[in-house]
């Protein structure tokens, strides 16, 4: 990305306070996830004498049905949810960008083949596919990252393909071809750098979707294996105690909601910053 785009981005962040708030929220979550080992309680130690306590000075978010400190669990859950979100996004952005750029650059039969394959892939209900795959594979962070990543790159590759088709007609790409540069080099040095803004927008929105998917899978008990926590598995756990201690559902729910909302907001701001015409409306 060149400097002009950065300036635009900074001015967007300054004018749109909600974007700044989104960035601050995400910053706090990321820092908190990194600092999780500093929490005063262990997330997995069971205290059966301290079950289902309401929030207090001792236990900020209260305790769950096994007497585990809910705040510590939320922090460790943030590690899982955010890292799954970022890693799965990286997987899907990498695959989506490469397939999309190849499809758009070469065009013709290859393009038709790839795009029709994506159409088929997108028409499969990915959530069921995820459930089925998860049943056969060993649950864990790596599995869930790969499953989500491999099932969510299609929409990114469509966006990248469309952008590639427009960029490849620019004269600097024509020049690169005239000067005898290899196709690999043209795609990686000229085309992909030119569509980074689009990829950033797609990636940001993709993280939000991925975090939702991870939460849903964990909620169904198919994500991270117990006793480790993720926001989705905490929600799952809380559903049996909704009458006794509703805060158990409230905290992970709020965390998921604010994270997804913040990423969506940020995605919108990135888009506005990179397409200056949009924000003039």
């Amino acid at each position: 990305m060149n400097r002009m785009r950065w300036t635009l981005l900074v001015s967007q962040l300054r004018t749109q306070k909600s974007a700044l708030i989104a960035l601050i929220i995400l910053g706090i979550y990321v820092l908190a996830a990194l600092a999780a080992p500093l929490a005063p309680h262990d997330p997995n130690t069971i205290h059966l004498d301290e079950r289902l306590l309401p929030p207090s000075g001792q236990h900020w978010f209260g305790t769950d049905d096994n007497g585990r400190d809910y705040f510590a669990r939320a922090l460790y859950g943030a590690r899982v949810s955010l890292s799954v979100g970022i890693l799965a996004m990286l997987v899907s952005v990498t695959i989506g960008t490469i397939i999309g750029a190849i499809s758009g650059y070469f065009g013709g039969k290859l393009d038709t083949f790839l795009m029709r394959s994506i159409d088929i892939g997108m028409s499969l209900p990915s959530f069921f596919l995820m459930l089925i795959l998860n049943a056969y594979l060993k649950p864990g962070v790596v599995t869930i990252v790969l499953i989500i990543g491999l099932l969510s790159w299609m929409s990114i590759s469509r966006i990248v393909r469309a952008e590639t088709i427009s960029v490849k007609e620019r004269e600097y790409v024509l020049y690169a071809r005239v000067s005898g540069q290899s196709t690999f080099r043209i795609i990686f040095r000229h085309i992909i750098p030119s569509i980074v803004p689009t990829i950033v927008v797609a990636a940001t929105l993709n993280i939000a979707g991925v975090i939702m998917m991870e939460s849903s899978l964990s909620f169904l008990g198919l994500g991270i294996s117990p006793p480790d926590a993720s926001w989705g598995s905490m929600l799952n756990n809380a559903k049996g105690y909704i009458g006794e201690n509703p805060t158990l559902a409230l905290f992970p729910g709020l965390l998921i909601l604010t994270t997804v909302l913040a990423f969506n907001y940020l995605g919108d701001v990135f888009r506005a910053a990179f397409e200056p015409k949009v924000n003039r409306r």
Partner: protein
Amino acid sequence: MSDNSLLEGRGQARTGKTPLLEVRRLAKHFTIEKSLFGRTTKVLKAVDDVSFHIHRGETFGLVGESGCGKSTTGRSVIRLFDITSGEICYEGIDLAGMNERQLKPYRQKMQAIFQDPYSSLNPGMNVMELISEPLEIYGGYSRSNRRDRVIELLERVGLKREHADRYPHEFSGGQRQRISIARSIASGPEFVLCDEPISALDVSVQAQVVNMLEDLQQELGLTYLFIAHDLSMVRHISNRIGVMYMGKLVEVSFSEELYTHPAHPYTEALLAAIPIPDPKVLMPTDRLLQGELPSPIDAAIGCKFRSRCPYASRRCGEEEPVLKRIAPGHYAACHLHE
């Protein structure tokens, strides 16, 4: 049948060798519409049966209005895409059927400068990276040698060494075009396609760029195919000029001859459209073009210019004129000259 002797002019006698570049019966058709079963139903004949040659050290100008196929011709010559039919001979070797691997040695010898100085330079790369790209491909330079070479090239096109670390958006249109020129001569080419290199520039800058191109041609012995949509600047730089109309060459001649004795009515109209920098001179509006350009998609019979031609006769509607020699080195495709 193509008649090669058709396009031989005095240029041939001057060098006495085979031309550096010879284009024979070049055609490039674009598919507009396909039927359900993949059969092409509508075709745009962007370039249709065009032949010309360019001698070493010569500048061949190609003029015509927007959409007449001059850029497509230029881009076909440097093999930016596969052509529909015809031959593109570089030093006698046909490039038309070559794949990218076979073309690579020719890519170094044939370079290009494009029209839009704003989109022809990658905005994410600085001048150093931009100009050293062709050097990286053809090797032979170490990192520090490359920097020296880039600075040498920058100074040659009238820029300064401190410009090397700046980005394209920090330059004016004229300076960007100088960067493009430096980049195009970096690999030591013999042939440069100048695809409307001055159309996007101010008139004052146009002259500077044209003079620089001429100087470089002298120093480096370059051969140019110079594409433009107006005749005023082309006259200064070109030895010979070809006039295109709707995918066809309608007239080819030496620059001075073309200006003093235009043979095709379309060339006359183009010459009449050159503005005269004197407010007292009235524009001869009766000689400017009237009428609409016919659709290039429909396959029309007869002369394509007849809808706008003041001299159109019945024969023009029935028979398409072919390029014929009307004077030494001067060819025109018009029934008036028979």
